[in-house]
């Protein structure tokens, strides 16, 4: 589960317990119902007002393989993965050897009694818990006890770190709000664990949780859920999709909210249509057909789906059809690790399809941006008449993130350059692929427009400004050059990068560029590096293609580390090709083990590279 060999834990350094800074890992096997116990554990801490995040590392099957859930409470608000675990609840024989081996000295191990024999390390605080005995006092039915046993460790952990049992209870009530009996049995189990621990275990000497108020008014949400809400509030009208991990919940949650919030108030009829297609070729074809016919159409998929959509994306690029693709990236190539984290589709999405062509990518870095960019993507697709990718990854998309509640979208829906009958009558002429405004974006009409000039013929083959067939060299080149202009317009319309100077108003020597789910790790790493005396400016990229700010940032720094979660330095390659003058200033920090990005790996790599240069 972790790539690190144990090193001495920071938690050893102080004598008094660290407050509100702990990482807990629960190792179970999937399909055993540990998920709700884990959520309750997280929620209890959240309820105490402590910033908390969770990462679920689950296998690509449905039941029986090792799975890990880590909860990180951090007064400082760090929400990235931490490599070193402070407390491990080890429930699974299949992974217990590794689970124990990778704990740092001084860490606490809560061990299922049946696994006692594995507890050979003397540098750990080991608590063996008779889970089976405790649960058998509660329920007899084996299936139920399998589920309920997990709640017992919640009680144990609550005792160890002084989590308020009132908050555990609140979290249980919330989780089982529709099933009082389930709430009761789970509360009983947590209580049993708590009572047993109180009687048998000392509280943690190293860590402690104390109430604060940093989570007031906040929400906890997954990026896929936020994205779904963005599509619903962004006015998507057609969704064509095909299930694939880790993107399925984007579509599934979208469908749920559509059915609740997107009925026409006058007629009661849906203002959307959804089809679960037979495959990704069809889901993209549906999006392309719908976008052509005037819908705000989207699909959600992951890497293998992206590969299958290539030809149709090329068609949409060239025929200039609005379309949105949400790509919740997983680990490729090939089927890869469907339940692991990667930013490996940057290249394939940016250049998708044969022949020339580039597509704008939105790169949300947190759940709020998932919401906002998903909504924005529909506007951009229609404004630019092209395919817009919204790039998430499994960490951002399927893990739980705390956030301020999302604000209503202020900007009205933008349908781009569409000429309806009246407008067409007014302008009096129409050539589908003519650059009327000099921004490379032509006007379009929507099928059904009754104006005699409205109809045009869409094709993936060479065409003139008037959309007639042409194989003429100058028509082809003229059109392709206009598409380049359009892409340059896109640069100005995409969300701007977020700039954070190490010292406000000053420019540091070193810069870092990152995007997406790397953000928390990079922020934490900057803090770590700052504490080592290394000041680093940060540009968080929020879209491709790049514009002025990125160029200026790279120009302003001696060296810029590009942090990305893939092997091939995909973003760095794009930046080098676009900014050859600064190609040598770009260094890569590459994370591609499949685990969510962590600060330490970033810090170590930057320190290593800087010291090679004799700078650090």
């Amino acid at each position: 589960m972790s790539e690190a060999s144990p090193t001495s834990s920071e938690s050893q350094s102080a004598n008094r317990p660290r407050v509100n800074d702990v990482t807990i890992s629960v190792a179970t096997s999937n399909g055993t119902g540990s998920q709700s116990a884990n959520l309750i554990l997280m929620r209890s801490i959240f309820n105490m007002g402590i910033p908390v995040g969770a990462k679920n590392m689950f296998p690509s099957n449905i039941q029986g393989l090792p799975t890990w859930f880590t909860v990180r409470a951090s007064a400082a608000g760090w929400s990235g993965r931490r490599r070193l675990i402070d407390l491990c609840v080890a429930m699974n024989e299949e992974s217990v050897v590794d689970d124990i081996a990778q704990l740092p000295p001084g860490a606490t191990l809560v061990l299922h009694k049946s696994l006692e024999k594995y507890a050979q390390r003397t540098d750990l605080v080991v608590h063996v818990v008779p889970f089976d005995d405790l649960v058998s006092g509660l329920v007899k039915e084996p299936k139920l006890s399998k589920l309920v046993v997990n709640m017992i460790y919640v009680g144990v952990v609550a005792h160890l770190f002084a989590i308020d049992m009132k908050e555990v209870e609140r979290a249980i009530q919330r989780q089982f709000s529709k099933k009082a009996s389930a709430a009761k049995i789970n509360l009983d189990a947590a209580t049993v664990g708590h009572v047993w621990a109180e009687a048998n275990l000392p509280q943690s000497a190293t860590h402690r949780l104390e109430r604060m108020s940093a989570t007031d008014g906040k929400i906890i949400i997954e990026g896929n859920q936020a994205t779904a809400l963005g599509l619903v509030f962004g006015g998507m009208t057609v969704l064509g999709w095909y299930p694939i991990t880790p993107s399925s919940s984007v579509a599934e949650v979208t469908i749920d909210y559509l059915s609740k919030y997107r009925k026409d108030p006058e007629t009661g009829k849906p203002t959307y249509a959804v089809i679960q297609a037979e495959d990704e070729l069809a889901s993209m074809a549906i999006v392309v057909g719908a976008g052509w016919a005037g819908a705000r159409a989207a699909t959600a998929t992951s890497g293998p789906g992206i590969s299958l959509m290539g030809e149709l994306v090329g068609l949409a690029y060239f025929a200039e059809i609005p379309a949105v693709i949400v790509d919740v990236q997983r680990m490729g190539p090939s089927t890869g690790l469907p339940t692991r984290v990667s930013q490996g589709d940057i290249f394939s999405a940016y250049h998708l399809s044969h022949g020339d062509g580039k597509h704008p990518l939105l790169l949300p870095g947190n759940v709020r941006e998932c919401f906002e960019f998903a909504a924005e993507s529909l506007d951009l697709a229609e404004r630019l008449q092209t395919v817009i990718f919204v790039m998430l990854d499994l960490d951002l998309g399927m893990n739980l993130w705390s956030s301020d509640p999302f604000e209503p979208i202020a900007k009205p829906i933008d349908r781009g350059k569409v000429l309806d009958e009246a407008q067409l009558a007014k302008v009096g002429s129409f050539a589908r692929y003519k650059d009327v405004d000099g921004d490379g974006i032509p006007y379009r009409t929507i099928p059904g427009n009754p104006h005699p000039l409205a109809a045009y013929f869409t094709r993936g083959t060479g065409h003139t400004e008037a959309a007639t067939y042409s194989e003429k060299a100058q028509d082809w080149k003229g059109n392709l050059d206009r598409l380049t202009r359009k892409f340059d317009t896109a640069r100005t319309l995409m969300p701007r990068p977020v700039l954070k100077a190490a010292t406000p108003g000053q420019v540091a020597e070193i810069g870092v560029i990152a995007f997406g789910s790397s953000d928390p790790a990079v922020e934490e790493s900057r803090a770590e590096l700052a504490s080592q005396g290394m000041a680093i400016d940060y540009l968080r990229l929020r879209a491709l293609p790049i514009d002025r700010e990125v160029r200026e940032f790279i120009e302003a720094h001696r060296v810029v580390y590009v942090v990305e979660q893939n092997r091939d330095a995909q973003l760095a390659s794009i930046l080098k090709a676009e900014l050859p003058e600064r190609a040598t200033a770009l260094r890569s920090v590459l994370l591609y083990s499949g685990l969510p990005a962590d600060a330490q790996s970033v810090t170590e790599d930057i320190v290593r590279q800087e010291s090679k240069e004799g700078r650090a």
Partner: protein
Amino acid sequence: MSHEAAAPPAAPKPTKAPALNRLSLDLKAYKGANSTLCSGCGHDSITNAIIKSFFEYGVEPHRVAKLSGIGCSSKTTAYFLSRSHGFNSVHGRMAAVATGSNMANHTLLNIGVSGDGDTASIGLGHFLHMVRRNPQLVYLVENNGCYGLTKGQFSATADKGSLQKGGAVNRMDPIDICALAIEMGCGFVARSFSGDAKQLNQLLKAAIAHKGTALIDVVSPCVTFNNHEGSTKSYPYARAHEELIHEVGFVPFFEEISVDYDAGTTQVVELHDHSKVVLKKLERDYDPTNRRQALELLSHAQENQLFLTGLVYLDPSMPSMAEQLDLGSEPLATLPAEKLRPSPTALAEIMETFK
């Protein structure tokens, strides 16, 4: 029975087509760009049949969306109805593209033109899944048993034993697009011949009137690559072997039928817009509303290499995709933007559930 021997369809009486249709449009309003196909290509005859049928039915051109894949056949959408939006998409995906188009605007009549390669090879899966969904669509397969545009390779509808121009023999049984469509629940399945303009005209008008997907598999000879001796999709072969299942007539909803039909020799089926399909018996006793009979007819034809044309299967009652999606009268494509964004209150309400 050879085609030449067949009497013209019974109803409506063949009269000279009037110069203007019920929308006061002339035939020209239904034409398109000049064809760039080989002269004599069967596909051009089908183009003409489409022009005539849409004209006669009086379809408003702007209420039509023309869709196609890639192939000589797929090019033809440019050659009719120039006042309709058209979309010549990519190879084999038209069925799914049309599905999307119909979701965006279910008030348009889609006409999809495909080839046997486009539909039965690369597009087979999408075609079958589209049929299951039943979007509003006249789906034409211009079936020449070969890949015209890539110069004559066998397609999956080439008959067993059929010869390629270079002499190669096709060793596989053909895919019967009609049989598969019925198997997948298609409510309107017909087979015709590009050389049989009259039948095609009646079938096309009935297809226009049909609610949901109407499939017409039209044998359409490729004069350049598949019109030689030994081909079973050539003009001479099709002309010599076409056998009518029945005579197909079509009475649009806007025309009165005054005569009564003899129930013994004529079957009348009413479509959802109250147009009527009038089928006059010839040699065989055939009820195209009987699914089992339809499948039997096709497997009989396949086993005996018969070229039977007519309306193979008709079930006017199948719910269309738009009905299944419960869509309202205003198409999604043109719903006002205000209707597409839930209120800030709704968002606040949702946010509460995540707290």
